[in-house]
């Protein structure tokens, strides 16, 4: 299972998908992946930064949506205060 978490004032909005089912062509799983991809692109366009996070692995900043990622966390644009 993959999960996209987008930080916001509401906490974080989550969207999950089943990568294995999507690979077999399951329509619902494919739609979930596409929706996650769309939201990822929308947030990136707003200036958000995306990180691939997995237990025991170094955090990695990613530029493109990765449907195989266990968890992607998106943070809003930041500025020096």
């Amino acid at each position, binding site marked *: 299972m993959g999960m996209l978490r987008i*930080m*916001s004032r*509401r906490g974080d909005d989550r969207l999950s998908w089943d990568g294995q089912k999507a690979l077999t062509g399951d329509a619902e799983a494919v739609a979930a992946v596409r929706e996650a991809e769309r939201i990822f692109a929308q947030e990136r366009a707003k200036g958000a930064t995306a990180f691939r996070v997995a237990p025991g692995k170094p955090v990695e900043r990613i530029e493109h949506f990765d449907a195989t990622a266990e968890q992607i*966390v998106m943070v809003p*644009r930041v500025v020096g205060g």
Partner: protein
Amino acid sequence: MIPLPQLLTALGWIVIALAISPMLWLIFQPYLKGWSRSERRAADLLRAILTPEQVRQLIWQGYLEVPSPTEPRRVYRVPRVKGYVQVVENGRAIMRLCLQPVESLPDADVVVLHKLMIEANEENYLQKANKYLCVE
């Protein structure tokens, strides 16, 4: 007609209540915030990203230490609530950093944000932050 002593007593209690209410608000505000849905969701994310030891450090010490990925003697102290991130080298605070999201986020999310940014791209994080040197 209310007798004067009783009126004065009532007024006294009102003044005391008004005086202590900001203090009570300051004491209980973090707990009240913790009950909100957004704070609970942010706390879930925090627990998913941090190790149990890191969560304990954040609760008991009030900050999370994020080791620098490039400089072994440097750690970043990210406060539990919004504030400056301290840069500590060889056990000495050398700098304070200010970096904030353009959108208001729950405190726990801000901690995660700093951790992810430092670990994924420390150089970029330092470029974006405003720096205030600590002078002794």
